[in-house]
Every structure is written in structure tokens, then in C-alpha cells.
């Protein structure tokens, strides 16, 4: 909990190195399939953006392209105006649908991330423990990551992403395989990060989750961002036919 209150000012006072994240004319082609079909997309400002849309719409690919994890077939991505680079990657937090944890203890998974951003050795364990505390899994610090439950693994992966104090946190369906209790824990942690000033973008299939967490919703369909609106407006009166059909539960493909 240490820096929870101090964080917004700290983040605001620091020069932003990632935000705004912007994709310009993004195309991603895999074989004959065009997964992203000319996307112009910007994430700046603050709050939580929910990215929703049917399976195969291109949400995950869009998130990975914006994170610099995969290169687009055409178009380009910028972080604060310049192309993504490895040095700034720790400030772009990414949480995968299936958490990938190192074969080490929960604590060591976080100290590893801290080492990459150059946190002095003496401070790592303390800060890692803080991160585990915020995720309410400090009691698992010494447990091997491999013996944790699905929910604990995702909490650890989220705690690790937050430990390096990212400007933006992108989550790719982080709760799709989790129990309601684990989902609640993840959502609470994501919302705390948002309140602390981290920009959040969350891919989700769970409309209830989007209603609970999002300030803003982007609707992706057939490789295009079809609609983007504040949460209330989106759910009350979606402007596109695709989004209306999706919300009615008709649009599954």
C-alpha cells in the first residue's frame, strides 16, 4: 500500500514516455486473413478503456501490436510520439490471458522484473513484497509460482506488471478462465491501479466487467475499431449496427 496515495502525483510529475500510445493505419495480415484492417487508434489520457468485440475480431492482435510485441504488416505504432523500444517496455505493462511465470518463487518473479528496470538489489525484495501485498498474495511470496492456483497466478502476473509502475497497463482477457472470487480480486487490483493514475486498457468478453470497470468502451469488429464512446453512452445507445447486435447477444462472429 506504501505508495498508493503518492502515486498519482508522482506519475503526473514524471515526463510521460509511453502515453499516448498510438497506432496509425495498422494492418495485420496472417495468411489470407486480414486480422487488423486499417486501424487508427490512440490511448492517451487516463481511466480504463474496455476493448470488446466478438472472438477473432482482432482485439488481442491490436493489443500486441500496440505493445510492440508483434510488428504490423503495414502502418506503425508510436509511444509518446516515437517508435516502441525495449528500454521503455517496462513502462508498458502487459498481462496475458494465460500468465507466463518464471520457474521461481512468487517473490522472485517480481524481483526479476524490478532488476530489469534497474532497481538496486537491496530495494528489490521490499518493493516486490509491497507489490504482493497490494495484490493480497504476500503470504505466497516464497511459494514456487508453479504451485499457485489459476487465480493466484494471474494476480501474481498482474502484480509483476504493476511492480515496475507502468504508465499503461494492457490486459488481454485476464479473467476469462477464473472463478468469480479470483475475478473480483483481479478487478479490484486493476481498479486500484487506475485510481493510482495508471492508464488501463482491458480486453474483455464480459460485458458486466466492462460496465463495472470501464470509463470508455471501444468496440472492435472484423479488424476495425467500429465504435468508441464513454461507457454510459456506449451501453445506452450504441451508434453502430454491429455494436447493437453484439450487445443484444446476436453478433457472435
Amino acid at each position, binding site marked *: 500500500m506504501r505508495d498508493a496515495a503518492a502515486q498519482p502525483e508522482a506519475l503526473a510529475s514524471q515526463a510521460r514516455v509511453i502515453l499516448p500510445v498510438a497506432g496509425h493505419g495498422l494492418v495485420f495480415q496472417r495468411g489470407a486473413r486480414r486480422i487488423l484492417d486499417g486501424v487508427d487508434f490512440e490511448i492517451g489520457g487516463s481511466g480504463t478503456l474496455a476493448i470488446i468485440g466478438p472472438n477473432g475480431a482482432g482485439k488481442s492482435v491490436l493489443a*500486441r501490436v500496440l*505493445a*510492440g*510485441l508483434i510488428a504490423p504488416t503495414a502502418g506503425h505504432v508510436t509511444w509518446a510520439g516515437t517508435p516502441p523500444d*525495449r*528500454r*521503455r*517496455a*517496462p513502462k*508498458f*505493462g*502487459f498481462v*496475458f490471458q494465460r500468465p*507466463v511465470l*518464471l*520457474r*521461481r*518463487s512468487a517473490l*522472485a518473479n517480481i524481483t*526479476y*522484473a524490478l532488476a*530489469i*528496470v534497474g532497481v538496486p538489489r537491496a530495494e528489490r525484495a521490499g518493493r516486490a513484497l509491497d507489490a504482493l501485498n497490494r495484490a493480497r498474495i504476500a503470504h505466497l511470496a516464497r511459494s*514456487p*509460482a*508453479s504451485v499457485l492456483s489459476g487465480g493466484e497466478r494471474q494476480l501474481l502476473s498482474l502484480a*509483476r506488471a504493476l511492480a*515496475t509502475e507502468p504508465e499503461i497497463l494492457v490486459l488481454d482477457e485476464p479473467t476469462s478462465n477464473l472463478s468469480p472470487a479470483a475475478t473480483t480480486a483481479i478487478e479490484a487490483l486493476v481498479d486500484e491501479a487506475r485510481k493510482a493514475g495508471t492508464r488501463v486498457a482491458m480486453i474483455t468478453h464480459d460485458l458486466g466487467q466492462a460496465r463495472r470497470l470501464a470509463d470508455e468502451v471501444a468496440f472492435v469488429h472484423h479488424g476495425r475499431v467500429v465504435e468508441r464512446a464513454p461507457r454510459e453512452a456506449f451501453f445506452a445507445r450504441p451508434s453502430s449496427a454491429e455494436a447493437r447486435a453484439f450487445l443484444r447477444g446476436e453478433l457472435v462472429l
Partner: protein
Amino acid sequence: MHDFYSAFGEAFRLVVGLDPDLTEIVWLSIRVSFASTCCAALLGLPLGALIAIAKFPGRSVAVVLLNSLMGLPPVVVGLMVYLALSNSGPMGSFALLYTPTAMVIAQTILITPIIAAPTRQTIEDLGQEYDEQLRALGVGPLRAVGTLLWDGRFSLITAFLAGFARATAEVGAVIIVGGNINHVTRVMTTAIALETSKGDLALALGLGMILMIIAIGVNALVVVLRATGARSAYA
């Protein structure tokens, strides 16, 4: 039959009584094999990691070649090293033939693929699992290789032990380049071959017992390591 039983009894006395001839041979065997395995690890770990991670044309050929080299015939390696080290060979001036160094060279060549091939497999599998996450964390290529080697350490130590077991049991290469010279290059396997042909079954049997103990010990160590690995963070 009487001979057979008395040879067993005598072998047992040699082992338990730590017979000086026997211990000298065992000690040389262990030193040569350990040195070879260490040299092979120094070459094999980076080589395996490199083939696992680097993308280059002909990579799959390199993988097939590396896996095939695990079955390299020791006598062929012995012959090649013999030719290289013999007086008229390219390295003849170093006068290494029939020395323990020559045996270490031959065994290093034999064991390097035995360590490199499983290293390649381990690092490649782990690399596929970790790749996107490490890049998301901003990990550079050099640190990524270090991470993969560290997180794969239990499998890699197993490969090291397999290499050591192979080295201690190997006879074809060391007898060609070492020459089985008493007090100089006589190791367990070459001594067993010689003593058996001479009819001195006691020493041969005693050394055979120790070879078996080493093999069992190494494999027991592998089991213990696997259990430790499973407890401390291994899936």
C-alpha cells in the same frame, strides 16, 4: 567355478580395502571424465543455447546433425583424435598422444553433443513459453539467454550428469588415444578390458563394481535433483 567365486571375493576385498592400484585407476578415471564433462559443458551449453535461439538458414539441419552426433562412435572419435595428435598429425608437435590430456580431448568431443542436444531442446521449449512475456518486460537478448539457462538449470544439470556417466563408461576412444599405460593413462574401462583378457578377473570385477556404483550414484543424483526441482518452482 571355484575361480569365479574367489575372483568375486578378491574383487570385494580390493574395493573395500581401497587397494592402491585400484584407487589410482578410479581416481584418474574420475578426473579425466570430470574434466571432459566440464570442457564439454563449456562448449555444449552455449552451443545448444545458440542453436535454440538463433535464427539462421540451415538451422533444422544443425538440429538433426547435433542430435545425430549424440551417437558418435567412440572408436571413430578416438581414431580422429589419434590422427590429429600423432607425430605426423597437425597437432603432433604438442606431444599429447598417450597422455590424460589426449583422453580429455577425445571425451570432450564425444560428450559435447550429449550436453548440447538436450540443452538445445530445453532452451527452445522454455524460450517458446517465455518469449512474449520476456519481451513485454523489456528483457534484452543476452539477459533472456541467461534467464532461460537459469530456469532450465535442473534439466541442464541432468544433461551434465548424463555426459559424466557416459564419459566414465566410455572405452573405445580413450584406449586409442590414451594407450592404457599403467600409472599414466589406465582408467577403469581400459583396465577392465586388459585385466579380463589377461585373466585377472578380481581387479576387473572390482573396477566393474565401482563403475556400476558411479552409474547408480549419478542416476540417484538425477532423481534427487528432479525432486528438488519439482519442489522449488518447477512445473
